[in-house]
C-alpha cells in the first residue's frame, strides 16, 4: 500500500505546508492522484479506450484568527503554487471570524499507511487485452441472445479501473496516505423488436482491481450471468404493461428488492449528513441536531452506513463506497443511523463533528481537490436485532395485490422526499408472485414516513449496484441496498407510470 511516486507528491505537500505554517494558525491539505484506464462501447457501436488518464489536485484549508478558507489547487510547479497560495492568504485576511468554526481532532494520528496492497498495478501492465475482452464478451452475449430471441440488442458498456492515491497532511504533523483500487462495469442494454424498444442496466463495482470482472482475460461467469439476466429482462419488458389505474388504487404492498434501495440512500441517508443538518436542510433532524420526529420507520428497521458484515465483523475490504480513511485523514467508522425505527447517529466530517461536539466518523470526502463535504459510503437497510428474514413465499403470503420491484436508475433527493425510476416490476396477486411483467415506474417517497409501514424482510442484505452520488457539484462512489423489504402501501410512497 505504498504510493508509487510518494516523494514527488510529498514534495508538494511539504512545500505548501512549509509556505503557510508561519502565516496561519492551522493548515491541512489533501492531495489526490488518480490513474485510470477506461473503455466504452457506445450506442453506435464505436469502441473507445482511454488507456491512460492521470489526474491530480490539492485541497488546501487555512485557518487564522477563526477565519477559514478552502481552495482547490492544480499541481503544476512549486512556483505557481506559491503565487496561488499568496493570493489565497490575501483573501483569507478579508474574511470575518466564525466563532463556531473548528475541526475535531484526527483520531489515531500516528498511523500513516492505509489501503490495499495492489496485486497487479494497472500503470505497469498492458491492459489492452483485458479491456478488449470486456467489450468482446458483452458483444458476443448480445449477438447470441439477439439471435435466440429474434430481437436486436444494442449494448452500451462503460468500464473503468483506477488507483487512487491520497495524502492527508497538516501543520500539526499529521501525515497519512491511502492507496485504493476501484473497478466499475456497467452494461446498459437497449432492445428493439419491430417498433418496440426497451432498456435495462446492470452494474458491478467494488474496491477491487480488474480481477473483479475478469478471469484469465475473460468475463467471469458471475458477470456473464448478470449480463444475460439484464438482456433477458430488457426482452421481457418488450411485452410488459403498466399497472392499471384500478390495480394502482387497490395495491396493498410494495416489495422492494436490494437493487431498488437507492431510496434508503436518498430519502434517509442524505438527511443524516451533518453538514445538511447544520444548514437546516435535513428532513429528519433539526439544525440543533435533534430529530424532527421520534420515529421514522417501523420497529423492525435498522439502517447503517457501513460495509456489510462478514462473520460478525464489518468488512472494510468490500463495498464500492468503502475507503479506510476519509479525505481528512479520519478512519471511517461504521455508523448506525436508525435503530428500531429511531434516529441514533449522524454522519460527520471534522467540521461538523466539532460543531456538534461529537466524535468524527470519517465521512469528509472530496472529489479531486474539491472542498471536503459529508458523504455516505454504503447505506443499507437491515432487519433490527432479533428480527428474522423470511423465505420469500412466506413474506408474500399476505400480499393481496402487490408489486415486486427491481433495479433503479438512480435517484434524486429533496428535503422531504426523493424519486427514483425503477426498471421492472412483477405483479403479486393473492400471495403469489405472478409472471406478469410491469413497465418501469417512478417511485416518489416521503422521507419521514415511507418506512413506517415496513412489515418484513426476506433474503440476505446485499449492496448490488455501485452508484455515483452527486453533492455540491462533486461525485462520490457509493452503494445502497438491503434485503427484500415488504412495505404496506401508504400515502408516503407513490408509484406512477
Amino acid at each position, binding site marked *: 500500500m505504498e504510493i508509487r511516486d510518494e516523494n514527488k507528491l510529498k514534495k508538494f505537500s511539504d512545500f505548501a505546508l512549509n509556505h503557510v505554517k508561519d502565516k496561519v494558525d492551522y493548515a491541512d491539505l489533501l492531495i489526490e492522484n488518480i490513474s*485510470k484506464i477506461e473503455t466504452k462501447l*457506445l450506442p453506435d457501436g464505436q469502441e473507445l479506450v482511454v488507456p491512460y488518464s492521470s489526474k491530480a489536485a490539492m485541497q488546501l484549508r487555512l485557518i487564522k484568527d477563526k477565519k477559514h478558507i478552502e*481552495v*482547490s489547487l*492544480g499541481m503544476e510547479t512549486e512556483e505557481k503554487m506559491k503565487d496561488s497560495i499568496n493570493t489565497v492568504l490575501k483573501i483569507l485576511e478579508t474574511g470575518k471570524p466564525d466563532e463556531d468554526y473548528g475541526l475535531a481532532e484526527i483520531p489515531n494520528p500516528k498511523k500513516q499507511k492505509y489501503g490495499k496492497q495492489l496485486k497487479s498495478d494497472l500503470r505497469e501492465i498492458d491492459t489492452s487485452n483485458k479491456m478488449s475482452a470486456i467489450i468482446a464478451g458483452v458483444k458476443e452475449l448480445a449477438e447470441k441472445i439477439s439471435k435466440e430471441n429474434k430481437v436486436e440488442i*444494442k449494448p452500451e458498456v462503460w468500464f473503468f479501473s483506477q488507483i487512487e492515491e491520497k495524502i492527508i497532511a497538516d501543520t500539526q504533523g499529521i501525515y497519512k496516505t491511502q492507496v485504493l483500487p476501484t473497478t466499475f462495469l456497467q452494461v446498459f442494454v437497449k432492445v428493439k423488436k419491430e417498433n418496440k424498444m426497451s432498456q435495462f442496466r446492470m452494474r458491478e463495482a467494488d474496491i477491487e482491481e480488474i480481477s473483479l470482472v475478469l478471469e484469465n482475460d475473460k468475463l467471469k461467469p458471475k458477470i456473464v450471468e448478470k449480463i444475460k439476466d439484464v438482456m433477458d429482462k430488457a426482452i421481457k419488458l418488450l411485452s410488459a404493461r403498466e399497472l392499471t389505474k384500478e390495480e394502482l388504487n387497490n395495491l396493498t404492498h410494495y416489495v422492494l428488492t436490494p437493487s431498488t434501495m437507492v431510496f434508503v440512500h436518498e430519502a434517509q441517508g442524505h438527511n443524516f449528513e451533518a453538514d445538511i443538518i447544520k444548514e437546516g436542510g435535513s428532513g429528519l433532524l433539526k439544525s440543533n441536531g435533534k430529530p424532527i420526529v421520534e420515529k421514522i420507520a417501523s420497529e423492525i428497521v435498522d439502517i447503517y452506513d457501513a460495509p456489510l458484515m462478514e462473520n460478525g465483523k464489518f468488512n472494510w475490504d468490500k463495498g464500492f463506497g468503502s475507503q479506510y480513511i476519509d479525505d481528512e485523514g479520519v478512519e471511517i467508522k461504521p455508523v448506525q443511523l436508525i435503530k428500531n425505527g429511531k434516529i441514533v447517529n449522524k454522519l460527520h466530517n471534522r467540521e461538523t463533528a466539532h460543531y456538534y461536539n461529537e466524535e468524527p466518523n470519517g465521512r469528509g470526502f472530496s472529489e479531486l481537490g474539491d472542498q471536503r463535504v459529508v458523504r455516505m459510503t454504503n447505506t443499507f437497510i437491515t432487519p433490527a436485532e432479533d428480527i428474522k428474514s423470511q423465505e420469500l413465499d412466506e413474506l408474500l403470503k399476505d400480499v393481496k395485490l402487490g408489486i415486486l420491484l427491481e433495479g433503479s436508475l438512480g435517484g*434524486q433527493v429533496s428535503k422531504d422526499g426523493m424519486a427514483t425510476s425503477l426498471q421492472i416490476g412483477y405483479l403479486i396477486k393473492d400471495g403469489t408472485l405472478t409472471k406478469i411483467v410491469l413497465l*418501469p415506474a417512478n417511485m*416518489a417517497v*416521503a422521507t419521514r414516513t415511507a418506512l413506517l409501514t415496513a412489515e418484513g424482510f426476506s433474503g440476505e442484505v446485499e449492496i448490488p449496484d455501485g452508484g455515483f452520488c452527486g453533492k455540491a457539484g462533486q461525485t462520490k462512489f457509493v452503494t445502497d441496498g438491503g434485503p427484500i423489504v415488504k412495505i404496506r402501501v401508504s400515502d408516503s410512497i407513490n408509484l406512477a407510470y
Partner: protein
Amino acid sequence: MKLKKFAKELIEKTKSLVDDIELCIGAGKSLEYEIKNKKISVSLSLDISSIGIRVLKDGKLGSSAITRLDVDEGIIAVKKALTNTKPTVLKQFAKIENSPVIDNFDQDVLDLFDNPVMLREVAEEMQTRIYAKVKDLESFEGGIVVAYGERLVATKNGLSFSKETSFNAFAEINSIDYDFYINYSKPKDFEKIKNLAIDLYNKLPKKQVTPSELDVKGKELEVVLDPMCFESILRTLLGEKVYGSAKEHGLTELEINDVVASNKLTIIDTGIHQDLLSSSPTDDEGNSSKENILIKNGILKTFLYDAVSALKSNKEPTGNGMRRPILAEDRTEAPVREKLRGLYIKPGNVPYEKMLSDIDKGIYVKALMGLHGADKSRASFVAGIHIGKSIEQGKFARLLAPGAWNLSGNLFDLDGKKGMLKDIELSKETFNTGSAILPWLKVKLSF
C-alpha cells in the same frame, strides 16, 4: 497564452508520432462566497486544468487525459494513447478555421477576483435582508460565484481559443424553491442580487397541497412548465431522438419532415447565440459551432451530427461533437458524443400572466426529481415533482407537497398516446437559463 503555448509545443513535439492530434483543454479559476446556516464561507479554485487528448494513427483512434499543462507529461499521454487504439472512420481531425467569434468575456468580472470584499458584502447583504424580513426561516442557502475560464481546441490543422467569464448568484429558501442570476457580465445593479432571496420568498405560497386535496389524482391536468423544467425535459429526452448516430442505428423512429410537435413550436440548437453562456467558437472537436433549426413549426428539419456520425451519414458536422459526460464520467475522459448545444425556442404570443390566469385548476412545475432515470429509448418520463405550485382560479395558490406528486409524459407520439408537444401554448416572454432561452410552456399532462 499559456494554453496556446502548451498546445503548440505538444503538437509540435508529437507530430512525428501521430497522423493527427486533437487537444481539448479547459482551464480557469473561480471564487465563491457561500451562505449557509447564517454563515458566509469563501472557497477558491485556482490553476485547475483538464486536458483531453485524442490521436489518429493508421486509421485508428486513441485517447488519454491529464490535468497538468506539462508538455513532458503530455508526450507520455500521447504515447500511452497510441498503445490501445481502435478503428475509426475519422481520417483526420477538424480543420479549425473561420470559427465564429463569441464574446462571453467581461473584464469587470475578472477584476472582481481582486475585490473579494465587495463580493462578500453583496452576499452579506443578501443574507441580512432575508433574515431581517423572515426571522424563522428553516433554511437559507445562497451565494455568489465569479468564474473565469479559458477553452482551447487544437489539431494539427488549426487552433481555437476562447475565454469567458461568468457571474452567478443564487438563493434557496427552506429547500423548497430557488432562484438565480447568471450572466457572463457583471450585473449593472447589485440591488437585484441583494434582493434575490427576498423576492423569492415573497413569491412562495405558504401552504402545501397533495393531489388528493386538489382532487386531481389520476386526471389529466393543465401544466405550466417553467423554462428550467422545460429545458431539463428537452435535454433528457429530445437529444437521444435527434442525434445522427441514433438515426444511423435505428434508435429513433423520427424522420426528417415528420410532424413531431405543434406548429407553434420552433426549436433551434445553437452554439453561437451571443446571450448564451454555453456558446463557443467550436465544438469539442474543433468543428465550427452553428445554428441548427431542429424543429420548425412542429416539423423535424435536421438531425445533429458530430464528426463521426456526419461521416457515417454522409453529412456535414453540425457542431454538436462534445465531450459529453454521462453519470460520473469526467469531462475530458468522456468520449465525444453528439450533444444538444444551446437551445432557443421561438416565443409564442400568449402573455405569461394570461397563460396562468386562464387556468382554473392546474399546476406550475419548476423542477422534477429523477428525470435522469427517464426512458430515453421511448422518450418518455415519469418523475417526482421537486418544486411546483398549484394554480387555482388563475393564481399560484399552494406549494405541491414534497414526495406526493408525480408527472409523466411522452415527448413524441407513443403507443397511441399523443406526444406532449402536440398541444401546447408558448408564452410571449422568454427566460435565459444560461444554456437555453425558452418561453414558458403550457401542456396537458397526467399524474
